[in-house]
């Protein structure tokens, strides 16, 4: 699955995008975040406080309990600050 990171989430993970093979048992966005947190110290920092991270599944905003089944692209980023 393609995982993307933006803004300070990316600054922590050190990469903007990675292809990750996920274990079958991951169900939700929250499961995925906990799994990704184990990839590096930077990833751990990025996901240290999940309340500070927003997620989009296939470019649509999603909640932490949303299912990741069938998704092709999941993105993690801080709360938006445009406009």
């Amino acid at each position, binding site marked *: 699955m393609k995982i*993307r990171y*933006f*803004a*300070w989430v990316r*600054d922590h993970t050190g990469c903007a995008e990675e292809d990750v093979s996920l274990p079958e048992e991951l169900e939700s966005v929250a499961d995925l975040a906990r799994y990704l947190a184990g990839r590096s110290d930077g990833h751990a920092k990025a996901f240290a406080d999940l309340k500070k991270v927003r997620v*989009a599944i296939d*470019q*649509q*905003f999603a909640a932490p309990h949303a299912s990741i089944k069938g998704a092709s692209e999941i*993105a993690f*980023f*801080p709360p*938006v*600050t*445009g*406009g």
Partner: protein
Amino acid sequence: MKFIRVSEEDFSVEAELAALADRRAGAQVCFVGRVRDSSPDADLQALTLEHYPGMTEAEIGRIAEAAAARWPLTGLRVIHRVGRLLPEEQIVLVAVASAHRKAAFEAAHFIMDYLKTEAPFWKAEETSEGRQLGRGQRRR
């Protein structure tokens, strides 16, 4: 009727409003957001705006659809810049036209509010102390 652009390119408010001119539309409202220095010691050097290409345009499109369904607009233009911007530079334009000024004011305000909360843009400030990771600006 709807025009949406997300790019590094600057815009001309004059040209955008001219593009909205229409014999039946007497009211045009536009919002221009500029890089604001909200740091306590006023030492903002620049702002860098990044976004989520694809998702940004789709979100803005949804917001524009919602506004067009709710108010009788004859035209609507949203331009959002990305990249590195200096203080006072233009960041965002929302311009709408309608036969009625109340509809034009309400629609432009609505679009701006949703842009702020729903469109995946992130600001990072550069001050003389360095870059602040995604701290962004306080709300306008």
